[in-house]
Each structure stands twice: as C-alpha cells, then as structure tokens.
C-alpha cells in the first residue's frame, strides 16, 4: 500500500499519526474505515477534521486514543508509540488525552449525579482524597460556566443539551489533559448554543494550553476554531492545509464541493446545485485509484488506475489529487 503522508509544518508535533489503518471485520467482509492516514498536530494547535458521515472521522479519533486498536500504523504521542503500549503505561498516558462526544446527553450516565460524573476520571486516576476531588470538581465546573453548588447534586436529565455538553467538557478537563479529541461536539446543538460551546472550547484551550483534534462535518464550524484543516473522504485524507488558505483556494475537488455546500445567510446567494450527486460508495468495496472518482466532476482514466498521494500544492497545503484545482 502506498503511503499518504503530510509532512509536518512544525517540528514540535505533540501527535504524529503515521499511516494509520483501521478495519472492521463484518462477517466475511472488511470495512475499510481508515486506510493509511498520516497527520501531525503541533503542541497548542487545533487541527480540524471534516468529511461526510461514515468517512471514518470517529474511527480515526478513537484509534488515536487507542479506544479502538488500529489494524496497522503508528500513533506517536509526545514521542511515545501508543499502539504498542499496554496496561499501566497506557493508563498513565490516557490521563493526558481525552475525548468529547457528539451526543452530550447520551454520553452521561442518567442515574449518576453530575458531581460524581465529573469526578469519575479522578477516581479512576486514583485521587483518593474526597476533599481534593470536590475542590477540583468545583473548579472545573466554574471554568465551564456552571454554578457548582446548583449543579453537582442533580441528574443529567435536568439539563439542556448545551448544559450537558458543558458537563462533558468539564469531565474531559478535570485531569488536566494535554490533548482532546472533540468528536462533533456541537453537531447536536442549535445555532446559539453551538456558538456558546465553540467559544467555551476556545477559552478552555487557551486557559489549559490544550491541543485539539476537532472533528465535524460542518466546514464553517471547523474553520471557526482550527489552525489547520484536514479533509477526509471514505477513509483517506484528501487535503490538509492552513484553514484560511484551504478555504480561499481549495485544491481538492471534494474540498471545493464541501465549501459550496455550506448554507450562506444571504438571500442573493441562490444555492448552487453542484454538490456531489448521490452518496459515498461503500467502504467495504472502495473504488480503485482515487476513492472520490465516482462522484468527482474531474475524474478521468488515471483517477481509476492510480491512487493519488498527498502532494504539496502550496506552502503548508497538501492535496491527494491527480488534477488539483490549484
């Protein structure tokens, strides 16, 4: 298999994912969920990851955290290969990385009080002193904009979706992690709460010095918080580059189509009907060559014969396409 690699723009990569492959066996068949993805995230950076439903974003995020062991490839976190770590060593490393999910209500245990939910990572990490736990819970709940005294004794169903997402963020922050995978943290929220949570994540990032992998299917949301953006299609990376550059001059036809699909709040902009027709092919039998070719307006013979590799198209910007737009 050919490698897909985007050289790091910064030598100080906190996360270095190298040729990651994740496959799910289903019956006699194999779902090629992530097929040779490489990316780096510098310390303090937010990398946005976008792509359609089913393209492998969550699988990639979970494999990075070793919540799903990858089929092949390496995940270097601060220089340590997580894929070969086991037991205590892995548990120690896990304190430094966290995950925030899309569905905040479903990811909170409905029978446990908020105080206990937020304290749980401390218990798992072996913080025995109940007073210390309580103090940390109060601190982190205040940090995410909730009043600890009003919140700790209540159950998840007493909170709105936006408040539940704040609680999830508090739980993710309590061990003072360095790196957080945010898996569609605002997709289930309405426009105004979405803005509140995006602002909160940005504030927490500054305050706790976090590095983020921010997963979403909405490019406008991703652009609002990311330094760089990686675009994924059917298990592979199409394009990686600095956010503004990528939006101003997308090189991959799929990136361009994603940008066109964003609804613009301007009645003079009549939506163009140029979004890709149909839905992505099955990851059980991905197309040969370029996986996007069945929906790409520029596809030709070469696209079905030869898999495009990520190549530099501009400083810091890489696209996997035989006929890039720039």
């Amino acid at each position: 298999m050919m490698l897909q690699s985007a050289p790091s723009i910064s030598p100080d990569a906190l996360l270095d994912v190298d040729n990651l492959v994740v496959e799910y066996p289903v019956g006699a068949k194999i779902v090629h969920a992530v097929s040779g993805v490489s990316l780096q995230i510098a310390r303090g950076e937010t990398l946005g990851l976008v792509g359609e439903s089913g393209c492998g974003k969550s699988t990639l995020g979970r494999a990075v955290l070793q919540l799903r062991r990858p089929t092949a490839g390496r995940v270097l976190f601060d220089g340590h290969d997580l894929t070969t770590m086991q037991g205590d060593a892995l548990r120690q490393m896990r304190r430094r990385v966290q995950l925030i999910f899309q569905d905040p209500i479903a990811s909170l245990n409905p029978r446990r009080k908020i105080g206990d939910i937020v304290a749980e990572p401390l218990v798992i990490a072996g913080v025995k002193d109940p007073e210390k736990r309580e103090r940390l819970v109060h601190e982190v709940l205040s940090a995410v904009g909730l009043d600890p005294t009003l919140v700790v004794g209540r159950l998840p169903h007493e909170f709105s979706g936006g408040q539940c997402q704040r609680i999830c963020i508090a739980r993710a922050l309590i061990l003072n992690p360095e790196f957080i995978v945010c898996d569609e943290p605002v997709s289930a929220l309405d426009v105004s709460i979405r803005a509140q949570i995006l602002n909160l994540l940005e504030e927490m990032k500054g305050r706790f010095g976090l590095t983020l992998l921010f997963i979403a299917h909405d490019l406008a949301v991703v652009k609002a918080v990311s330094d760089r953006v990686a675009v994924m299609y059917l298990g592979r990376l199409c394009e990686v580059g600095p956010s503004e550059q990528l939006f101003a001059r997308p090189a991959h036809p799929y990136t361009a189509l994603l940008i066109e699909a964003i609804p613009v709040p301007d009645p003079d902009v009549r939506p163009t009907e140029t979004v890709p027709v149909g839905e992505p092919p099955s990851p059980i039998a991905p197309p040969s060559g370029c996986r996007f070719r069945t929906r790409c307006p520029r596809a030709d013979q070469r696209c079905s014969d030869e898999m495009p590799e990520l190549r530099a198209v501009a400083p810091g910007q890489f696209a996997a396409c035989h006929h890039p737009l720039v």
Partner: protein
Amino acid sequence: MTGNTLLSVEDVVVDLPTPRGNLRAVDHVDLTVGAGQTLGVVGESGCGKTMLSRAILQLLPKKAKLSGRVMFDGQDLLQLPPEKLRKLRGRSLAVVFQDPMTSLNPVLTIGTQLIETLQEHLELNDATATRRSVELLAAVGIPAPEQRLAQYPHQLSGGMRQRVAIAIALSCEPKLLIADEPTTALDVTIQAQILDLLAREQRRRHMAMILITHDLGVVAGRTDEVAVMYAGRVVERAPTPALFKKMRMPYTEALLAALPKLDAAPHTPLPAISGRPPDPTRPLQGCSFSPRCRYAMSRCQREKPGLEAAETSAHQFACFHPIETHADANV
C-alpha cells in the same frame, strides 16, 4: 398574496399541561402561506416550531389545548371530522420530520409504504402504484429505485431514508408540505442535496412549503418569506430579501450573528446569545427576549411588544426598540 391564500393560521395558542404548570408552547401566532409559496420558520430549540406545525397538522399531543383557527384550502381544520382530517393529511397536506424514522415504518419495505400511501389516497391499481413509486424514488435521487422497493428503512443511510420520507410525502401531490428540520440530522453535503431536492420539487409541483429550521443560513436562499419565532411567538416576519436587508428585531440579528462566518479568521470569538430562552411555564411579563437582549430598556421588562408592521406592511416585528431606531439614537 391574499388572493390565493392556501393556509392561514389565526391567533393560534397551544397550551400543554405539565407537572410544573401550564406550558404555553405557541402563543397567539398568526401566519399565512400563499399557494406555491415557501415560508421559513426559524428559531432556537424549544421556541415552539414543532408545536406550531403539529397544530397546523392537527397532530398535537392528546393533552394539548388548542385555540384559534387554522384555515387550509378553504376548510377550517379545527372543525373537520377526524376521518376527513386523516384523508387530508398525506393527500393535500404532507409533512417531513427531522427524523425520517418518525414517518417510516421499520417493519415494512419502502415499496409497501409508498404503494400503500398512493392507494389509500388515489385510486390506483397495483401496477400503476408500483410504477409511480419507482418514479417518485427516482425523482428524489435514489439510485436503482426498482431494487429499493424491496428494502427496509434500516438498510438505507440517513440521507436515503430522508429521501424516501420525502418521496412518500410528495406521493399524492400535496398542496402544502411542512418540512420540520428535514436536514438537521444530516451532514452538510447531504443537507444541501435534500434542500435542493425540496426546492426543485416545490417549484416543479407549484406546491407551498413551510421550512422549519434553527439556521437562518438554510432559509436565506430558499424561501419567499421568513417568520422568526421566540418563546412561542412570531417576533419578526418579512419577505426573505427584506429581512436579510434590514433586520429589525434584536433576536433575529443575534441569531444571524451566532453563525460562524466563512470570511472570519479562525479563532474569532462568535457573538453568542448568552443564556437560554425563558422557561415556557414561567412566562415573563415584558418582552420574552429582554433578559438576553443587548438593547433592552426598562419598558421591555414591563410590557410585551406586539407584532407590528414596519414601513411596508409585509415586514412586521415585535420590539420597542427595533435595530435601526436604536442605531439612530446613538448617532
């Protein structure tokens, strides 16, 4: 537009009894939709959009109390016997929900569901109904429609299921389609496809449509008129171009500002609306938006502004200090 009004909602109130007391989900709403016109209904979660559409469809929870009048195609829906209502729904009044599984039956094939709907409302024999079903699936962009007839909803992706739900809703050529957040559960490219599909079918069939969403970006290029709802009320209503050219209601402005802008640099803080809408079981005396409104003054806490017309009667808003007036005062 009054000449060919298809739907008129007159002073509709929906009350729901809850353990916390009466919850007013829809609070004196007036709306009209002309034949072949598209109305966007926009507002945050919980502001009453779905309850309003359920009031129009006469599909409210059993315990709900409804008052006012809903005139559709010359008939008063509140006075219509249940049997006639059932005939009307699915025939000339159709709906697509956010979750396609609300309208699809998980244990029946796509084909059975389409054919049953067609045969219930139109007198078609099996062969004709099957042919029409295939045509409908093709029209909503489903590849290999013949094969799909034998499939069950769970064998399709979310986007495909929503297309099937739309095909069923369109099957009997409705005069009005209510689409309640038809794309909120779908990702951006599929969202654009479904919205394009709805717009195309709406134009082609000269069908009226109510498009419900929390995203002003979704209604901008796709509706003739927009009604903004807040805490159960319509707080601003205008032809779409007029609304985007000159918003008057601070809430509408705040909703628009909260959208991430593509031309903003990364890490630009979003002007979020602080707090939440008021608890609908504890109505405020004054303007419901006053606790969150940056233009609020003392009158806003005491009195509730009514929906009034601006310079053109088509543009209405409920605010004592509409945006332009406020700006002038500062100059």
